[in-house]
């Protein structure tokens, strides 16, 4: 975009979907699985365990709306995991899984969250790195 100020930080990084995956990292910086774990188990940022169960004994309350995340790193590649976290609606428009890195197509978003994705680009990479370690 010619003329866009260099300091503009787009809240959402454009992605290229190939098949059922996003092969390219959103940031070019490798994800950190430990940070990813903190996000996934957090009831403030990731919210994942509201809907999913998984190998996270530190979190007592786990959900049953989505599949158990045990073994997901063996079932899916990092590229496939990335699309499921960024925007699972591209695979299943009716999914209950929120799109974590998308801000368009949403209605009645509360003021505090408007224009902000659930996870920023590096947080997505961190979560993907953690999910890739869940191989059994």
């Amino acid at each position, binding site marked *: 975009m010619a003329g866009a100020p260099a300091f503009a930080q787009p809240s959402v990084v454009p992605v290229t979907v190939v098949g059922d995956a996003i092969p390219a990292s959103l940031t070019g910086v490798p994800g950190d699985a430990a940070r990813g774990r903190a996000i996934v188990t957090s009831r403030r940022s990731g919210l994942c365990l509201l809907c999913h169960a998984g190998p996270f004994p530190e979190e007592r309350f786990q959900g*049953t709306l989505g599949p158990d995340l045990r073994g997901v790193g063996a079932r899916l590649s990092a590229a496939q995991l990335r699309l499921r976290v960024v925007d699972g609606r591209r695979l299943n428009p009716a999914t*209950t899984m*929120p799109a974590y890195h998308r801000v368009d197509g*949403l*209605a*009645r978003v*509360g003021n505090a969250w408007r224009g902000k994705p659930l996870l920023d680009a590096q947080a997505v990479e961190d979560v993907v790195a953690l999910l890739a370690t869940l191989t059994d």
Partner: protein
Amino acid sequence: MSRVAAGARVLALVAATVVLAASPACVQSDARRPGSATMSPQTRAMQRDDAQNPAMLWVADGEALWSRAAGPAGRACADCHGDARASMRGVAARHPAYDEASRRPVDLGQRIAACRQRHQQAGPLAPESHERLALEAYVALQSRGMAVAPPADPRLDAHRERGRALFHQRIGQLDLACAQCHDANAGKRLGGSTIPEAHPTGYPIYRLEWQSAGSLQRRLRGCMGGVRAEVPPYDAPDLVDLALHLASRAAGMIVDAPGVRP
């Protein structure tokens, strides 16, 4: 049978059909379960036993307020309505209902607040104020055991339809519709909570998490905030329209107010 009652019957059937269409897993309309059905045995026992149910404290205060004079004319609810056990029977079961004066649907709490201002000319009863909740709980108790009976009033149709649309609209940063949780995923666990079917039969409730009584409006606002959506102010049309839709989904179910919730 009066025409209104017959109309309510038809409506109950229509509502039951809608419920069936929305969730193929339900084979019968009485597969619908009140919120108390998925609670722990302790919480259920607390709701069942009036001596243990903390909401009964609000009922007792409501009963006292019922006969207390207020406003310049010094009139009490009882001066116009007599014994609530007779005059208020079934009133909660048919709310929200159409209010002639404001030409809008109002829920039971709003109806009581309006009566207080219009007929008693006393100060306003703010939403979630102790007095409004106490009177609402006392009036709701008079419908306990009766079937939810949304009025077949055509002036409510557009509002009810709007409520149905709101129930199915995905909202908020989490992009979730009420129906995705309460129709498609009822009975599953959302973190530590079991998702109820969202029937309004027990309101107002005492909620352990709130350590207080609260209205259906408060509950709906909580769910909206939970998906990080805009939360309408109390008494906003969205909340009443949603309550109308919830009442038609629950038509024929038994009022078990005042409820207890975790």
